[in-house]
């Protein structure tokens, strides 16, 4: 009874808090938009270099439009050109700050306010171990410093140095060199380094309107102890690991809700892509260490992947594309025991953009081959993830996004919990490179009790800021 009362008070308090926060954000947005200049002239590094606008390349940052995709594919050179970098040809002493700022960019993104409620609709005591049930003021906690561009004709590079306030330290999230237009224009572009393998598909992993919010685990995840999640990261389910009871080769538990394999966002290796038959068709083949391992990985057999993409981009402010990929793991994970397994992924993604409306989706199937006999009958070796998203401008500066996720989890039968959730976000661009947002995510499946963050999440509210310079 006492627990119920406290829970009820807490629920009411949380609702009031969310309401106050939402009202504050709304009023703040209105006031700020009144004070902010109307002209949306963004100046991140590439826009500075080409003296142009963010919207040449983006539908709404960080999502790319068709022009931006071709710019990316061409190794940060304008589509149809092999213009290289005039700055790169200057002598070192001739470089000045104006030259440097054409290569350097900075992004700060994160939630200023987070509110999580896990157990409001669960049976009393069902979530005793879950502590992430609170509203909090935070500070945008992700800083990314990136440098990119071309150093010479057909030689490009990108380095993203990320710092997470909570985790501490800095890490090269992505860093690679590109050698472009090998053979002839658009025939083959080579990337070497640490990159997002999925960046050229119809639905790129690292370009989300509803970003990952970070996850929290309770207790250790050392095999065979199951991981317990206080909070899922709200990564698109199609990109997620999907399996419970899966470990990397070092024995670290892999979160079923974290991006992985082709969608990990940063794998180390090399790949080649190109459009040898014209603009309607893109190919990509690559080889990476796999399973989030870095240079000098323990996985002697590398993971390989291939992707093909069909494009339609002609006129009427319309473009569409469809992609299919195969990612073949090679002893890239473990299942409770020390035995290696092959963890593979196959998927489709599609995107259509018409004027202010952008619709995209991805579906993937993960399969574990060579499941150890020790877990026979205890382990589901197939899992699927579906993500459908849509963005639309409702005013010249406000973007509304909606995303649906369904994760049919695999892995250890006694641990796995499938999940479905939906997220909605309003993002207001004060300038093309400065946005504030408010977002809420909801579960769609009934709670089953226990420490199952995947289903116990009843409402997650965030508001924050996204700044790119």
């Amino acid at each position, binding site marked *: 009874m006492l627990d119920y009362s406290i829970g009820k008070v807490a629920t009411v308090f949380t609702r009031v808090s969310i309401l106050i926060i939402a009202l504050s954000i709304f009023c703040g947005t209105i006031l700020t938009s009144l004070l902010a200049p*109307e*002209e949306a*002239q963004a100046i991140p590094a590439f826009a500075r270099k*080409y*003296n*142009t*606008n963010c*919207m*040449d*390349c*983006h*539908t709404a940052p960080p999502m790319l*439009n*068709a*022009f*931006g995709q*071709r710019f990316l594919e061409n190794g940060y*050179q*304008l*589509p*149809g*050109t*092999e*213009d*290289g970098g005039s700055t790169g040809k200057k002598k070192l002493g001739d470089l000045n700050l104006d030259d440097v700022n054409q290569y350097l960019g900075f992004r700060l993104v994160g939630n200023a306010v987070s509110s999580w409620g896990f157990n409001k609709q669960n049976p009393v005591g069902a979530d005793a171990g879950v502590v992430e049930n609170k509203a909090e003021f935070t500070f945008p906690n992700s800083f990314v410093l990136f440098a990119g561009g071309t150093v010479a004709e057909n030689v490009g590079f990108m380095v993203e140095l990320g710092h997470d306030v909570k985790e501490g330290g800095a890490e090269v999230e992505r860093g690679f060199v590109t050698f472009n237009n090998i053979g002839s*224009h*658009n025939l083959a572009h080579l990337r070497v380094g640490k990159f997002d393998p999925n960046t050229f598909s119809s639905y790129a992993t690292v370009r989300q309107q509803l970003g990952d919010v970070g996850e929290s685990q309770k207790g250790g995840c050392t095999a065979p102890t199951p991981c317990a999640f206080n909070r899922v990261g709200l990564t698109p389910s199609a990109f997620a690991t999907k399996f419970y009871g899966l470990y990397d080769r070092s024995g670290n538990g892999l979160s079923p809700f974290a991006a992985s394999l082709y969608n990990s966002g940063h794998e180390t290796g090399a790949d080649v892509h190109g459009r040898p038959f014209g*603009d309607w068709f893109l190919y990509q083949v690559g080889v990476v260490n796999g399973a989030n391992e870095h240079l000098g990985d323990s996985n002697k057999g590398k993971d390989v992947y291939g992707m093909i993409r069909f494009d339609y*981009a*002609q*006129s*009427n*402010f*319309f*473009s569409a594309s469809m992609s299919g990929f195969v990612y073949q793991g090679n002893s890239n994970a473990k299942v409770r025991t020390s035995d290696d397994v092959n963890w593979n992924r196959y998927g489709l993604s599609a995107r259509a*953009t018409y*004027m*202010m409306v952008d619709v995209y989706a991805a579906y993937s199937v993960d399969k574990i081959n060579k499941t150890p006999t020790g877990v026979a009958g205890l382990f589901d070796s197939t899992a699927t993830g579906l993500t459908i998203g849509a963005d639309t*401008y409702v*005013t*010249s500066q406000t973007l509304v996004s909606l995303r649906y996720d369904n994760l049919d989890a695999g892995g250890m039968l006694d641990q796995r919990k499938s999940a479905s959730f939906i997220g909605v976000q309003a993002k207001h661009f004060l300038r093309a490179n400065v946005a504030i947002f408010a977002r809420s995510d909801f579960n769609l499946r009934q709670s089953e009790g226990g420490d199952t963050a995947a289903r116990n999440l009843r409402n997650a509210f965030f508001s924050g800021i996204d700044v790119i310079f």
Partner: protein
Amino acid sequence: MRIRILLAIGAGFAMLSIASLANAVKPEDNQATREKGKQIYDRACLLCHGANGKGDGPAGWFIGRYESPRPRDFTGGSYKFRSTPSGELPMDQDLFRTVTQGIPGKMPPYGGLSEEERWQVIAYIKTLSQAFKGAKPTALVLPNPPGPPSDAGIENGRKTYIKYGCQNCHGDNGYGDGKEALDGNLKDTYGLMISPGDLTERASLKNGSSAQALYRSIMTGLDGTPMPSYADTIGGNDKDVWDLVYYILSLSQERQ
């Protein structure tokens, strides 16, 4: 041996120079040139300007979103950046300049295409509008700027600025915050809102920020926008035009 190497290097440079001069030659406007131009257009221009040149490419909507400018509709035969009188087609050189320099804040410069490729793509762009068939546009005579501006000349330019109502759109101090702009009365021919140039920020001057470029903009206007040609009004008084040009340039001097 060393002399031979130097001679060989010299010969190489000479051949390169000849090759680059050859590239600089404008190719003849024939079927082959236009076909080559189409290939370049499809790779470099289509994504914004659209397959048929209507300015409706798949990436085109986002550039203007709800505000002008959208990518140029090549089928209409109306061009902002010209050296020809208002209402006329541009010279090839005008198109070449825009392709090469881009439009600050809107279109990236395509100097990365070779000179020959830029001429080829211009030959193709002209096929997208019937207006170019048989047309022979004539450029206005754009004189060289006179000597350095005097304080009296700049003061005269300020008076000219007010006399011809420039402040109605560009604002008293040139910030682009004139009454017409603030009232939302400025629209392009597509009905999209358009902002006047911020004369204090040279990088925002889309038709160029040199004295000659400003002179050209004043005399030709920017077709399809509320910026008219002043050739019939102030045009008869060259001194006033140059004083106005130097007054406009003085507005941005502190920010350079």
